[in-house]
Protein backbone atom coordinates (compact mmCIF):
# COMPACT_ATOMS: atom_id res chain seq x y z
CA UNK A 1 0.00 0.00 0.00
CA UNK A 2 1.85 3.04 1.24
CA UNK A 3 5.25 1.66 0.50
CA UNK A 4 6.83 4.97 -0.24
CA UNK A 5 5.09 6.91 2.43
CA UNK A 6 5.41 4.70 5.46
CA UNK A 7 8.80 5.94 6.48
CA UNK A 8 7.67 6.03 10.08
CA UNK A 9 11.07 5.94 11.60
CA UNK A 10 13.11 8.28 9.49
CA UNK A 11 14.37 11.51 10.88
CA UNK A 12 15.24 14.20 8.43
CA UNK A 13 17.81 16.89 8.73
CA UNK A 14 17.18 18.87 11.88
CA UNK A 15 17.33 22.61 11.67
CA UNK A 16 17.55 25.02 14.56
CA UNK A 17 14.72 24.62 17.05
CA UNK A 18 13.60 28.10 16.18
CA UNK A 19 10.34 29.77 15.32
CA UNK A 20 8.54 26.49 14.71
CA UNK A 21 8.94 25.14 18.22
CA UNK A 22 8.25 28.54 19.72
CA UNK A 23 4.90 29.09 17.99
CA UNK A 24 3.96 25.48 18.60
CA UNK A 25 4.62 25.85 22.33
CA UNK A 26 2.67 29.08 22.31
CA UNK A 27 -0.23 27.27 20.65
CA UNK A 28 -0.11 24.47 23.22
CA UNK A 29 -0.06 27.02 26.03
CA UNK A 30 -3.09 28.83 24.63
CA UNK A 31 -4.97 25.56 24.30
CA UNK A 32 -4.09 24.51 27.84
CA UNK A 33 -5.33 27.88 29.04
CA UNK A 34 -8.57 27.32 27.13
CA UNK A 35 -9.06 23.97 28.86
CA UNK A 36 -8.16 25.31 32.29
CA UNK A 37 -10.56 28.21 31.81
CA UNK A 38 -13.58 25.86 31.61
CA UNK A 39 -12.20 22.99 33.69
CA UNK A 40 -14.36 22.74 36.77
CA UNK A 41 -17.88 23.50 35.64
CA UNK A 42 -20.98 21.30 35.44
CA UNK A 43 -21.99 20.42 31.90
CA UNK A 44 -24.67 23.06 31.56
CA UNK A 45 -22.97 25.51 33.85
CA UNK A 46 -20.22 27.08 31.78
CA UNK A 47 -20.71 30.86 32.00
CA UNK A 48 -21.12 32.33 28.49
CA UNK A 49 -18.20 34.69 28.97
CA UNK A 50 -15.85 31.85 29.88
CA UNK A 51 -17.09 29.78 27.00
CA UNK A 52 -16.42 32.63 24.59
CA UNK A 53 -12.95 33.15 26.02
CA UNK A 54 -12.09 29.50 25.69
CA UNK A 55 -13.34 29.36 22.13
CA UNK A 56 -11.20 32.37 21.27
CA UNK A 57 -8.18 30.77 22.93
CA UNK A 58 -8.78 27.55 21.03
CA UNK A 59 -8.98 29.34 17.69
CA UNK A 60 -5.76 31.20 18.45
CA UNK A 61 -4.06 28.15 19.90
CA UNK A 62 -4.93 25.89 16.97
CA UNK A 63 -3.81 28.59 14.55
CA UNK A 64 -0.49 29.13 16.28
CA UNK A 65 -0.01 25.41 16.82
CA UNK A 66 -0.64 24.54 13.19
CA UNK A 67 1.62 27.30 12.01
CA UNK A 68 4.39 26.10 14.28
CA UNK A 69 3.78 22.50 13.39
CA UNK A 70 3.97 23.23 9.68
CA UNK A 71 7.29 25.01 10.15
CA UNK A 72 8.53 22.17 12.33
CA UNK A 73 7.38 19.38 10.07
CA UNK A 74 9.31 20.81 7.17
CA UNK A 75 12.52 20.08 9.08
CA UNK A 76 11.64 17.20 11.39
CA UNK A 77 10.84 13.74 10.15
CA UNK A 78 9.76 10.62 11.98
CA UNK A 79 6.76 10.39 14.25
CA UNK A 80 7.41 13.63 16.13
CA UNK A 81 5.25 15.99 14.05
CA UNK A 82 2.41 13.50 13.93
CA UNK A 83 2.49 12.97 17.70
CA UNK A 84 2.56 16.71 18.28
CA UNK A 85 -0.37 17.12 15.92
CA UNK A 86 -2.29 14.53 17.93
CA UNK A 87 -1.44 16.31 21.18
CA UNK A 88 -2.62 19.61 19.74
CA UNK A 89 -5.85 18.07 18.48
CA UNK A 90 -6.59 16.28 21.74
CA UNK A 91 -6.17 19.39 23.87
CA UNK A 92 -8.30 21.41 21.47
CA UNK A 93 -11.01 18.74 21.53
CA UNK A 94 -10.88 18.66 25.35
CA UNK A 95 -11.38 22.40 25.40
CA UNK A 96 -14.21 22.38 22.89
CA UNK A 97 -16.09 19.55 24.59
CA UNK A 98 -15.79 21.26 27.97
CA UNK A 99 -16.68 24.70 26.64
CA UNK A 100 -19.82 23.41 24.97
CA UNK A 101 -20.63 21.11 27.90
CA UNK A 102 -21.04 18.04 25.68
CA UNK A 103 -22.28 15.18 27.86
CA UNK A 104 -19.85 12.25 28.23
CA UNK A 105 -22.69 9.98 27.22
CA UNK A 106 -22.41 11.54 23.77
CA UNK A 107 -18.71 12.28 23.32
CA UNK A 108 -16.28 11.72 26.20
CA UNK A 109 -13.38 14.13 26.59
CA UNK A 110 -9.88 12.81 25.93
CA UNK A 111 -9.01 13.00 29.63
CA UNK A 112 -12.00 10.82 30.47
CA UNK A 113 -10.93 8.30 27.83
CA UNK A 114 -7.42 8.29 29.27
CA UNK A 115 -8.83 7.73 32.74
CA UNK A 116 -11.06 4.91 31.53
CA UNK A 117 -8.09 3.41 29.76
CA UNK A 118 -6.21 3.34 33.02
CA UNK A 119 -9.05 2.23 35.27
CA UNK A 120 -10.36 -0.53 33.03
CA UNK A 121 -6.95 -1.66 31.89
CA UNK A 122 -7.29 -5.17 33.31
CA UNK A 123 -10.56 -5.93 31.53
CA UNK A 124 -9.48 -4.20 28.36
CA UNK A 125 -6.25 -6.13 28.22
CA UNK A 126 -8.09 -9.42 28.60
CA UNK A 127 -10.47 -8.34 25.87
CA UNK A 128 -7.55 -7.35 23.70
CA UNK A 129 -5.94 -10.71 24.26
CA UNK A 130 -9.07 -12.53 23.13
CA UNK A 131 -9.71 -10.28 20.15
CA UNK A 132 -6.14 -9.94 19.03
CA UNK A 133 -4.23 -13.04 20.06
CA UNK A 134 -7.00 -15.56 19.53
CA UNK A 135 -9.42 -14.26 16.99
CA UNK A 136 -7.40 -11.87 14.86
CA UNK A 137 -3.97 -13.46 15.01
CA UNK A 138 -4.97 -17.11 14.73
CA UNK A 139 -7.49 -16.28 12.04
CA UNK A 140 -4.88 -14.20 10.29
CA UNK A 141 -2.32 -16.97 10.36
CA UNK A 142 -4.86 -19.49 9.15
CA UNK A 143 -6.03 -17.18 6.37
CA UNK A 144 -2.50 -16.35 5.28
CA UNK A 145 -1.47 -20.00 5.37
CA UNK A 146 -4.49 -21.13 3.39
CA UNK A 147 -4.04 -18.22 1.00
CA UNK A 148 -0.45 -19.09 0.28
CA UNK A 149 -1.28 -22.76 -0.15
CA UNK A 150 -4.06 -22.02 -2.60
CA UNK A 151 -1.88 -19.53 -4.46
CA UNK A 152 0.84 -22.13 -4.82
CA UNK A 153 -1.67 -24.64 -6.07
CA UNK A 154 -3.09 -22.12 -8.53
CA UNK A 155 0.33 -21.38 -9.95
CA UNK A 156 1.23 -25.06 -10.04
CA UNK A 157 -1.99 -26.14 -11.76
CA UNK A 158 -2.94 -23.69 -14.49
CA UNK A 159 -6.42 -25.14 -14.58
CA UNK A 160 -7.04 -23.88 -11.06
CA UNK A 161 -5.58 -20.54 -11.94
CA UNK A 162 -7.96 -20.14 -14.82
CA UNK A 163 -10.95 -21.82 -13.23
CA UNK A 164 -10.81 -20.88 -9.57
CA UNK A 165 -8.76 -17.73 -9.29
CA UNK A 166 -11.30 -15.43 -10.93
CA UNK A 167 -13.65 -16.47 -8.13
CA UNK A 168 -11.10 -15.41 -5.55
CA UNK A 169 -11.11 -11.96 -7.11
CA UNK A 170 -14.90 -11.93 -7.01
CA UNK A 171 -15.15 -13.21 -3.44
CA UNK A 172 -12.69 -10.62 -2.25
CA UNK A 173 -15.22 -7.95 -3.16
CA UNK A 174 -17.84 -9.41 -0.81
CA UNK A 175 -18.45 -7.20 2.23
CA UNK A 176 -17.53 -8.89 5.55
CA UNK A 177 -20.61 -7.61 7.33
CA UNK A 178 -22.78 -9.60 5.00
CA UNK A 179 -20.71 -12.63 5.82
CA UNK A 180 -20.39 -12.27 9.57
CA UNK A 181 -23.90 -13.17 10.76
CA UNK A 182 -24.03 -16.29 8.60
CA UNK A 183 -20.65 -17.48 9.80
CA UNK A 184 -21.38 -16.85 13.45
CA UNK A 185 -24.57 -18.77 12.99
CA UNK A 186 -22.74 -21.66 11.32
CA UNK A 187 -19.72 -21.88 13.62
CA UNK A 188 -21.01 -20.76 16.96
CA UNK A 189 -20.37 -17.90 19.33
CA UNK A 190 -16.93 -18.84 20.60
CA UNK A 191 -13.76 -17.32 19.26
CA UNK A 192 -13.29 -19.80 16.37
CA UNK A 193 -16.18 -18.29 14.44
CA UNK A 194 -14.46 -14.89 14.61
CA UNK A 195 -11.15 -16.43 13.65
CA UNK A 196 -12.89 -17.94 10.64
CA UNK A 197 -14.31 -14.55 9.63
CA UNK A 198 -10.82 -13.12 9.91
CA UNK A 199 -9.32 -15.99 7.98
CA UNK A 200 -11.80 -15.55 5.16
CA UNK A 201 -11.24 -11.81 4.90
CA UNK A 202 -7.47 -12.24 4.90
CA UNK A 203 -7.52 -15.22 2.57
CA UNK A 204 -8.61 -13.52 -0.63
CA UNK A 205 -6.15 -10.65 -0.76
CA UNK A 206 -3.36 -13.10 0.03
CA UNK A 207 -4.34 -15.45 -2.77
CA UNK A 208 -4.72 -12.70 -5.31
CA UNK A 209 -1.48 -10.97 -4.38
CA UNK A 210 0.66 -14.05 -4.01
CA UNK A 211 -0.46 -15.40 -7.35
CA UNK A 212 0.28 -12.05 -8.95
CA UNK A 213 3.63 -12.03 -7.19
CA UNK A 214 4.58 -15.52 -8.25
CA UNK A 215 3.68 -14.59 -11.80
CA UNK A 216 5.54 -11.31 -11.63
CA UNK A 217 8.84 -13.13 -11.86
CA UNK A 218 10.92 -11.73 -14.68
CA UNK A 219 10.46 -14.10 -17.65
CA UNK A 220 14.11 -13.65 -18.43
CA UNK A 221 15.02 -15.11 -15.04
CA UNK A 222 12.75 -18.05 -15.68
CA UNK A 223 14.51 -18.50 -19.01
CA UNK A 224 17.80 -18.40 -17.14
CA UNK A 225 16.60 -21.22 -14.93
CA UNK A 226 15.67 -23.13 -18.07
CA UNK A 227 19.19 -22.75 -19.39
CA UNK A 228 20.42 -24.23 -16.12
CA UNK A 229 17.98 -27.10 -16.60
CA UNK A 230 16.96 -26.91 -12.93
CA UNK A 231 13.90 -28.68 -11.59
CA UNK A 232 10.64 -26.70 -11.48
CA UNK A 233 10.84 -26.78 -7.69
CA UNK A 234 14.28 -25.19 -7.70
CA UNK A 235 13.20 -22.53 -10.19
CA UNK A 236 10.28 -21.85 -7.91
CA UNK A 237 12.47 -21.43 -4.87
CA UNK A 238 15.19 -19.46 -6.59
CA UNK A 239 13.12 -17.09 -8.70
CA UNK A 240 9.38 -17.15 -8.12
CA UNK A 241 9.35 -17.07 -4.34
CA UNK A 242 11.71 -14.10 -3.97
CA UNK A 243 9.81 -12.24 -6.71
CA UNK A 244 6.56 -12.81 -4.84
CA UNK A 245 7.79 -11.54 -1.47
CA UNK A 246 7.00 -7.85 -2.03
CA UNK A 247 3.48 -8.77 -3.13
CA UNK A 248 3.06 -11.12 -0.18
CA UNK A 249 4.02 -8.40 2.25
CA UNK A 250 1.62 -6.02 0.63
CA UNK A 251 -1.14 -8.53 1.22
CA UNK A 252 0.05 -9.17 4.76
CA UNK A 253 -0.20 -5.47 5.56
CA UNK A 254 -3.64 -5.10 4.04
CA UNK A 255 -4.67 -8.23 5.89
CA UNK A 256 -3.41 -6.94 9.22
CA UNK A 257 -5.92 -4.12 9.27
CA UNK A 258 -8.70 -6.32 7.93
CA UNK A 259 -7.99 -8.91 10.62
CA UNK A 260 -8.73 -6.64 13.57
CA UNK A 261 -11.78 -5.13 11.98
CA UNK A 262 -13.04 -8.58 11.07
CA UNK A 263 -12.62 -9.85 14.62
CA UNK A 264 -14.39 -6.86 16.14
CA UNK A 265 -17.28 -6.97 13.69
CA UNK A 266 -17.56 -10.71 14.23
CA UNK A 267 -17.99 -10.11 17.94
CA UNK A 268 -20.96 -7.85 17.25
CA UNK A 269 -22.78 -10.93 16.05
CA UNK A 270 -22.36 -12.92 19.24
CA UNK A 271 -19.72 -13.76 21.86
CA UNK A 272 -19.26 -15.66 25.05
CA UNK A 273 -18.63 -12.43 26.88
CA UNK A 274 -15.13 -11.26 26.05
CA UNK A 275 -13.36 -9.22 23.42
CA UNK A 276 -12.97 -5.64 22.33
CA UNK A 277 -15.97 -5.79 20.02
CA UNK A 278 -18.08 -7.21 22.82
CA UNK A 279 -16.81 -4.49 25.17
CA UNK A 280 -17.58 -1.75 22.69
CA UNK A 281 -21.08 -3.09 22.19
CA UNK A 282 -21.90 -3.62 25.84
CA UNK A 283 -20.47 -0.35 27.09
CA UNK A 284 -22.03 1.66 24.29
CA UNK A 285 -25.35 0.36 25.61
CA UNK A 286 -24.48 1.64 29.07
CA UNK A 287 -23.42 5.04 27.71
CA UNK A 288 -19.91 4.41 29.02
CA UNK A 289 -18.47 5.90 25.88
CA UNK A 290 -15.17 6.56 27.62
CA UNK A 291 -14.61 2.81 27.85
CA UNK A 292 -15.83 2.41 24.28
CA UNK A 293 -13.23 4.88 23.08
CA UNK A 294 -10.59 3.33 25.29
CA UNK A 295 -11.29 -0.01 23.58
CA UNK A 296 -11.03 1.68 20.20
CA UNK A 297 -7.72 3.25 21.19
CA UNK A 298 -6.40 -0.17 22.19
CA UNK A 299 -7.62 -1.72 18.96
CA UNK A 300 -5.92 0.91 16.85
CA UNK A 301 -2.70 0.79 18.85
CA UNK A 302 -2.66 -2.97 18.28
CA UNK A 303 -3.40 -2.41 14.64
CA UNK A 304 -0.57 0.08 14.23
CA UNK A 305 1.82 -2.22 16.07
CA UNK A 306 0.80 -5.16 13.91
CA UNK A 307 1.29 -3.05 10.80
CA UNK A 308 4.61 -1.80 12.09
CA UNK A 309 5.92 -5.30 12.76
CA UNK A 310 4.95 -6.34 9.26
CA UNK A 311 6.63 -3.28 7.79
CA UNK A 312 9.75 -4.15 9.73
CA UNK A 313 9.69 -7.73 8.50
CA UNK A 314 9.13 -6.46 5.01
CA UNK A 315 12.17 -4.21 5.25
CA UNK A 316 14.22 -7.14 6.48
CA UNK A 317 13.15 -9.63 3.87
CA UNK A 318 12.70 -7.41 0.85
CA UNK A 319 15.41 -4.86 1.53
CA UNK A 320 16.67 -5.46 -1.98
CA UNK A 321 13.41 -4.33 -3.52
CA UNK A 322 13.34 -1.21 -5.68
CA UNK A 323 10.76 0.57 -3.56
CA UNK A 324 13.08 0.53 -0.55
CA UNK A 325 16.17 2.02 -2.11
CA UNK A 326 17.46 5.34 -0.99
CA UNK A 327 17.40 7.79 -3.87
CA UNK A 328 20.75 8.59 -5.46
Amino acid at each position, binding site marked *: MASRTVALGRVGARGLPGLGWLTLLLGLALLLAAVWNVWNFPLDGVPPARKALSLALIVLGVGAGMYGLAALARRT*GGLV*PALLAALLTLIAVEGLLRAYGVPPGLIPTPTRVATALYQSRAVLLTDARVTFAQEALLGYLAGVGAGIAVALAAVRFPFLERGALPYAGLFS*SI*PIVALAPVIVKAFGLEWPSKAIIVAITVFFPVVVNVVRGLQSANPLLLDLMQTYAVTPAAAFRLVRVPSALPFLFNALKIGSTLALIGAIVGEFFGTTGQGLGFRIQIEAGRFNLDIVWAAIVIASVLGIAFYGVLSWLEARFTGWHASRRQPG
Partner: protein
Amino acid sequence: MGGNLGPMLIVAVIALLLYWPLMLAVNVGAAQRSLNSGAELGCATAIACATQLRNPVLPAPAQLGNSLRAMSVPPMAPTSVPYNTLVTAGETVVGLLIASALGVGLAVALVASRAFERVTLPWLIASQTVPVIALAPMLAVVLGQYGVQGWLPKALIAAYIAFFPVAVGVAAGLRSPDPMQEDLLTTYRASGWQTFWTLRLPASLPFLFTSLKVAATAALIGSIVAEISTISFSGLGKMLAENSRASDTLALWVIMLYGAGLGIALVAVLGLIERLVTPWRAGQSR
Protein backbone atom coordinates in the same frame (compact mmCIF):
# COMPACT_ATOMS: atom_id res chain seq x y z
CA MET B 1 -11.23 -13.40 -18.76
CA GLY B 2 -13.08 -14.91 -21.72
CA GLY B 3 -10.61 -17.78 -21.97
CA ASN B 4 -11.28 -18.68 -18.35
CA LEU B 5 -14.96 -19.28 -18.82
CA GLY B 6 -14.68 -23.02 -19.43
CA PRO B 7 -12.49 -23.77 -16.41
CA MET B 8 -14.60 -21.41 -14.29
CA LEU B 9 -17.75 -23.29 -15.24
CA ILE B 10 -16.13 -26.61 -14.43
CA VAL B 11 -14.97 -25.33 -11.07
CA ALA B 12 -18.44 -23.99 -10.37
CA VAL B 13 -19.98 -27.36 -11.17
CA ILE B 14 -17.47 -29.16 -8.96
CA ALA B 15 -18.10 -26.72 -6.12
CA LEU B 16 -21.85 -27.30 -6.44
CA LEU B 17 -21.36 -31.04 -6.43
CA LEU B 18 -19.20 -30.84 -3.32
CA TYR B 19 -21.67 -28.49 -1.67
CA TRP B 20 -24.45 -31.00 -1.46
CA PRO B 21 -22.72 -33.61 0.77
CA LEU B 22 -21.12 -30.85 2.83
CA MET B 23 -24.47 -29.21 3.40
CA LEU B 24 -26.03 -32.53 4.39
CA ALA B 25 -23.20 -33.31 6.77
CA VAL B 26 -23.38 -30.05 8.68
CA ASN B 27 -27.15 -29.86 8.73
CA VAL B 28 -27.67 -33.43 9.91
CA GLY B 29 -25.71 -32.58 13.04
CA ALA B 30 -27.81 -29.54 13.74
CA ALA B 31 -31.04 -31.38 13.02
CA GLN B 32 -30.03 -34.26 15.24
CA ARG B 33 -29.29 -31.92 18.14
CA SER B 34 -32.63 -30.19 17.70
CA LEU B 35 -34.50 -33.48 17.59
CA ASN B 36 -32.61 -34.70 20.63
CA SER B 37 -33.63 -31.60 22.54
CA GLY B 38 -37.22 -32.47 21.80
CA ALA B 39 -37.97 -30.00 19.06
CA GLU B 40 -40.89 -30.64 16.77
CA LEU B 41 -39.42 -29.92 13.38
CA GLY B 42 -42.14 -31.46 11.28
CA CYS B 43 -39.85 -34.17 10.02
CA ALA B 44 -38.99 -37.49 11.55
CA THR B 45 -35.28 -38.19 11.04
CA ALA B 46 -32.22 -35.98 11.02
CA ILE B 47 -31.58 -36.87 7.38
CA ALA B 48 -35.07 -35.92 6.41
CA CYS B 49 -34.76 -32.65 8.29
CA ALA B 50 -31.38 -31.76 6.85
CA THR B 51 -32.71 -30.19 3.68
CA GLN B 52 -35.69 -28.42 5.21
CA LEU B 53 -34.38 -26.87 8.42
CA ARG B 54 -35.72 -23.41 9.10
CA ASN B 55 -32.35 -22.42 10.48
CA PRO B 56 -29.91 -24.48 8.47
CA VAL B 57 -26.17 -24.15 8.95
CA LEU B 58 -25.88 -24.30 5.18
CA PRO B 59 -29.08 -23.94 3.18
CA ALA B 60 -30.14 -26.62 0.74
CA PRO B 61 -30.02 -25.33 -2.85
CA ALA B 62 -33.75 -25.77 -3.25
CA GLN B 63 -34.43 -23.80 -0.06
CA LEU B 64 -32.08 -21.08 -1.14
CA GLY B 65 -33.63 -21.00 -4.60
CA ASN B 66 -37.10 -20.66 -3.13
CA SER B 67 -36.10 -17.88 -0.78
CA LEU B 68 -34.21 -16.16 -3.54
CA ARG B 69 -37.27 -16.19 -5.70
CA ALA B 70 -39.62 -15.20 -2.91
CA MET B 71 -37.46 -12.30 -1.80
CA SER B 72 -36.78 -11.04 -5.30
CA VAL B 73 -40.34 -10.35 -6.39
CA PRO B 74 -41.74 -7.94 -7.10
CA PRO B 75 -38.27 -6.52 -7.66
CA MET B 76 -39.16 -2.93 -6.84
CA ALA B 77 -41.31 -3.54 -3.78
CA PRO B 78 -39.85 -1.90 -0.68
CA THR B 79 -39.66 -5.31 1.00
CA SER B 80 -37.81 -7.08 -1.81
CA VAL B 81 -34.07 -7.56 -1.91
CA PRO B 82 -33.41 -6.15 -5.40
CA TYR B 83 -34.95 -2.84 -4.42
CA ASN B 84 -32.95 -2.66 -1.20
CA THR B 85 -29.80 -3.63 -3.07
CA LEU B 86 -30.35 -0.63 -5.31
CA VAL B 87 -30.75 1.62 -2.31
CA THR B 88 -27.47 0.38 -0.85
CA ALA B 89 -25.84 0.68 -4.25
CA GLY B 90 -26.90 4.31 -4.44
CA GLU B 91 -25.46 5.11 -1.01
CA THR B 92 -22.28 3.25 -1.86
CA VAL B 93 -21.80 5.05 -5.14
CA VAL B 94 -22.38 8.45 -3.60
CA GLY B 95 -20.02 7.48 -0.78
CA LEU B 96 -17.45 6.36 -3.29
CA LEU B 97 -17.75 9.63 -5.18
CA ILE B 98 -17.24 11.61 -2.00
CA ALA B 99 -14.37 9.33 -1.04
CA SER B 100 -12.75 9.82 -4.42
CA ALA B 101 -12.96 13.60 -4.21
CA LEU B 102 -11.66 13.56 -0.65
CA GLY B 103 -9.00 10.96 -1.40
CA VAL B 104 -7.70 12.70 -4.48
CA GLY B 105 -7.63 16.04 -2.68
CA LEU B 106 -5.77 14.51 0.22
CA ALA B 107 -3.35 12.78 -2.12
CA VAL B 108 -2.58 16.05 -3.84
CA ALA B 109 -1.94 17.67 -0.47
CA LEU B 110 0.24 14.76 0.64
CA VAL B 111 2.31 14.96 -2.51
CA ALA B 112 2.46 18.73 -2.54
CA SER B 113 3.55 19.24 1.06
CA ARG B 114 6.09 17.18 2.89
CA ALA B 115 5.07 18.88 6.13
CA PHE B 116 1.43 17.95 5.62
CA GLU B 117 2.46 14.38 4.96
CA ARG B 118 4.57 14.17 8.09
CA VAL B 119 1.84 15.56 10.29
CA THR B 120 -1.08 13.55 8.93
CA LEU B 121 0.15 10.37 7.33
CA PRO B 122 0.70 8.30 10.47
CA TRP B 123 -2.84 9.18 11.53
CA LEU B 124 -4.23 8.26 8.17
CA ILE B 125 -2.61 4.85 8.59
CA ALA B 126 -3.90 4.66 12.13
CA SER B 127 -7.40 5.50 10.91
CA GLN B 128 -7.21 2.34 8.81
CA THR B 129 -6.45 0.23 11.83
CA VAL B 130 -9.24 1.78 13.89
CA PRO B 131 -12.34 -0.37 13.77
CA VAL B 132 -14.28 2.29 11.87
CA ILE B 133 -17.20 -0.05 12.01
CA ALA B 134 -17.40 0.54 15.73
CA LEU B 135 -17.41 4.26 15.10
CA ALA B 136 -20.18 4.26 12.52
CA PRO B 137 -23.09 4.40 14.95
CA MET B 138 -21.57 7.28 16.90
CA LEU B 139 -20.76 9.10 13.70
CA ALA B 140 -24.37 8.71 12.63
CA VAL B 141 -25.56 10.14 15.93
CA VAL B 142 -23.27 13.13 15.59
CA LEU B 143 -24.40 13.70 12.02
CA GLY B 144 -28.04 13.35 13.06
CA GLN B 145 -27.51 16.27 15.38
CA TYR B 146 -26.99 18.48 12.34
CA GLY B 147 -30.01 17.15 10.57
CA VAL B 148 -28.01 14.85 8.32
CA GLN B 149 -30.45 11.97 8.02
CA GLY B 150 -31.69 9.43 5.56
CA TRP B 151 -29.29 8.10 2.95
CA LEU B 152 -26.70 10.84 3.37
CA PRO B 153 -25.14 9.64 6.64
CA LYS B 154 -24.77 6.19 5.11
CA ALA B 155 -22.95 7.67 2.12
CA LEU B 156 -20.78 9.75 4.45
CA ILE B 157 -19.84 6.74 6.54
CA ALA B 158 -19.10 4.81 3.36
CA ALA B 159 -16.90 7.70 2.25
CA TYR B 160 -15.14 7.78 5.61
CA ILE B 161 -14.16 4.15 5.26
CA ALA B 162 -13.27 4.39 1.58
CA PHE B 163 -11.25 7.57 1.27
CA PHE B 164 -8.04 6.12 2.63
CA PRO B 165 -7.26 3.55 -0.05
CA VAL B 166 -7.98 6.23 -2.63
CA ALA B 167 -5.67 8.74 -0.97
CA VAL B 168 -2.81 6.30 -0.58
CA GLY B 169 -3.18 4.90 -4.08
CA VAL B 170 -3.45 8.25 -5.79
CA ALA B 171 -0.56 9.67 -3.78
CA ALA B 172 1.58 6.76 -4.97
CA GLY B 173 0.32 7.39 -8.49
CA LEU B 174 1.09 11.09 -8.40
CA ARG B 175 4.60 10.20 -7.35
CA SER B 176 4.94 7.50 -9.96
CA PRO B 177 6.26 9.48 -12.94
CA ASP B 178 9.80 8.69 -13.83
CA PRO B 179 12.17 11.41 -12.54
CA MET B 180 13.30 11.77 -16.11
CA GLN B 181 9.78 12.65 -17.18
CA GLU B 182 9.67 15.30 -14.49
CA ASP B 183 13.00 16.62 -15.71
CA LEU B 184 11.58 16.76 -19.20
CA LEU B 185 8.80 19.08 -18.13
CA THR B 186 11.29 21.12 -16.17
CA THR B 187 13.25 21.67 -19.37
CA TYR B 188 10.01 22.96 -20.92
CA ARG B 189 9.62 25.37 -18.02
CA ALA B 190 6.20 23.83 -17.49
CA SER B 191 4.26 25.37 -14.61
CA GLY B 192 3.30 23.32 -11.59
CA TRP B 193 -0.20 23.05 -12.98
CA GLN B 194 1.00 21.94 -16.38
CA THR B 195 3.17 19.28 -14.79
CA PHE B 196 0.21 18.19 -12.72
CA TRP B 197 -2.21 17.98 -15.63
CA THR B 198 0.06 16.61 -18.29
CA LEU B 199 2.20 14.31 -16.19
CA ARG B 200 1.18 13.50 -12.65
CA LEU B 201 -2.54 13.14 -13.08
CA PRO B 202 -2.48 10.82 -16.10
CA ALA B 203 0.32 8.82 -14.49
CA SER B 204 -1.84 8.32 -11.41
CA LEU B 205 -4.91 7.02 -13.25
CA PRO B 206 -4.00 3.32 -13.18
CA PHE B 207 -3.28 3.66 -9.46
CA LEU B 208 -6.55 5.51 -8.97
CA PHE B 209 -8.54 2.66 -10.44
CA THR B 210 -6.71 -0.04 -8.56
CA SER B 211 -7.46 1.74 -5.32
CA LEU B 212 -11.02 2.62 -6.33
CA LYS B 213 -11.72 -1.09 -6.61
CA VAL B 214 -10.51 -1.62 -3.06
CA ALA B 215 -12.41 1.47 -1.96
CA ALA B 216 -15.63 0.26 -3.58
CA THR B 217 -15.68 -2.82 -1.36
CA ALA B 218 -14.83 -0.73 1.65
CA ALA B 219 -17.61 1.73 0.81
CA LEU B 220 -20.09 -1.10 0.46
CA ILE B 221 -19.15 -2.37 3.90
CA GLY B 222 -19.52 1.18 5.16
CA SER B 223 -22.99 1.74 3.84
CA ILE B 224 -24.24 -1.64 5.04
CA VAL B 225 -22.84 -1.05 8.51
CA ALA B 226 -24.35 2.40 8.52
CA GLU B 227 -27.74 1.01 7.57
CA ILE B 228 -27.53 -1.52 10.37
CA SER B 229 -26.52 1.01 12.95
CA THR B 230 -28.55 4.08 12.10
CA ILE B 231 -32.20 4.68 11.45
CA SER B 232 -32.93 3.17 8.07
CA PHE B 233 -36.07 2.46 6.15
CA SER B 234 -34.38 0.50 3.40
CA GLY B 235 -31.12 -1.04 2.27
CA LEU B 236 -29.35 -4.37 2.58
CA GLY B 237 -28.08 -3.51 6.05
CA LYS B 238 -31.55 -2.82 7.32
CA MET B 239 -32.73 -6.12 5.84
CA LEU B 240 -29.84 -7.95 7.47
CA ALA B 241 -30.71 -6.50 10.86
CA GLU B 242 -34.41 -7.27 10.57
CA ASN B 243 -34.00 -10.79 9.36
CA SER B 244 -31.36 -11.59 11.87
CA ARG B 245 -33.83 -10.60 14.60
CA ALA B 246 -36.46 -12.77 13.00
CA SER B 247 -34.15 -15.82 12.94
CA ASP B 248 -34.55 -16.02 9.18
CA THR B 249 -31.27 -17.68 8.18
CA LEU B 250 -32.37 -18.26 4.62
CA ALA B 251 -33.10 -14.58 4.21
CA LEU B 252 -29.62 -13.79 5.53
CA TRP B 253 -28.13 -16.01 2.85
CA VAL B 254 -30.17 -14.36 0.15
CA ILE B 255 -29.17 -10.90 1.30
CA MET B 256 -25.56 -12.01 1.46
CA LEU B 257 -25.74 -13.24 -2.11
CA TYR B 258 -27.14 -9.92 -3.26
CA GLY B 259 -24.45 -8.07 -1.30
CA ALA B 260 -21.79 -10.19 -2.95
CA GLY B 261 -23.33 -9.53 -6.33
CA LEU B 262 -23.38 -5.81 -5.67
CA GLY B 263 -19.72 -5.80 -4.63
CA ILE B 264 -18.75 -7.74 -7.71
CA ALA B 265 -20.82 -5.49 -9.96
CA LEU B 266 -19.27 -2.32 -8.53
CA VAL B 267 -15.76 -3.63 -9.16
CA ALA B 268 -16.72 -4.74 -12.65
CA VAL B 269 -18.15 -1.32 -13.50
CA LEU B 270 -14.97 0.32 -12.28
CA GLY B 271 -12.98 -2.04 -14.48
CA LEU B 272 -15.09 -0.95 -17.43
CA ILE B 273 -14.61 2.73 -16.70
CA GLU B 274 -10.91 2.09 -16.28
CA ARG B 275 -10.70 0.69 -19.79
CA LEU B 276 -12.48 3.70 -21.19
CA VAL B 277 -10.35 6.20 -19.30
CA THR B 278 -6.96 4.57 -19.84
CA PRO B 279 -7.07 3.46 -23.48
CA TRP B 280 -3.29 3.39 -23.74
CA ARG B 281 -3.17 0.35 -21.53
CA ALA B 282 -5.64 -1.55 -23.67
CA GLY B 283 -3.27 -4.10 -25.21
CA GLN B 284 -0.51 -3.84 -22.67
CA SER B 285 0.07 -6.84 -20.55
CA ARG B 286 -0.46 -5.80 -16.95
